[in-house]
């Protein structure tokens, strides 16, 4: 299938290593942040979220860190697997009804 990440920054990771994907957000008033994974030919899939009253949240193999001082988010993927190869987007919710502003995206390529 076609890739949506042809022009995106690429992170190459060896299988089994940890991945760190970074994102800068724009609105200091945003209070809810989401990481999405998008595989080729599919819509974005929810991975993990975090609210602004937290600075860290852990899921299964994933951790999101939030630094409000510098408006920075990161997604850490432990023991990266081939199935983690995809484009990853951060998004900030800009109103209470759910409008999302997406970051530029990072293409993660897992090598054997």
């Amino acid at each position, binding site marked *: 299938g076609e890739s949506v990440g042809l022009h995106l920054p690429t992170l190459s990771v060896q299988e089994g290593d940890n991945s760190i994907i970074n994102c800068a957000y724009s609105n200091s008033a945003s209070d809810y942040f989401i990481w999405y994974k998008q595989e080729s030919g*599919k819509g974005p899939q929810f991975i993990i979220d975090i609210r602004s009253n937290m600075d860290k949240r852990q899921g299964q193999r994933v951790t999101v860190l939030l630094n409000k001082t510098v408006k920075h988010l990161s997604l850490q993927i432990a023991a990266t697997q081939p199935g983690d190869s995809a484009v990853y*987007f951060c998004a900030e*919710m800009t109103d209470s009804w759910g409008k999302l502003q997406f970051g530029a995206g990072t293409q993660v390529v897992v090598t054997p």
Partner: protein
Amino acid sequence: SAVISQKPSRDICQRGTSLTIQCQVDSQVTMMFWYRQQPGQSLTLIATANQGSEATYESGFVIDKFPISRPNLTFSTLTVSNMSPEDSSIYLCSAHEDRGTEAFFGQGTRLTVV
């Protein structure tokens, strides 16, 4: 999580024609959102669709070009009108199960205008 179905999944259209994309949610949702994803880029919000009222468009998007319908709490359509090759993109709809929670997305409609 909500399941969102979009159709068509892809289409190739002649310039000057229009295409209507349908989005069906398996549960009732207050707001639905339409995004555009140009090749190799991120998602950009086109408009917010609230049932029973006119859609709210983001800067750079207008109703004449992207008319939206929202006839009930589970369905919405986006029409791409008078298409040109610059409209070639992936169009995605999304919804939230609850206010202020994560958005779920359809699989997208890949549109190519020739």
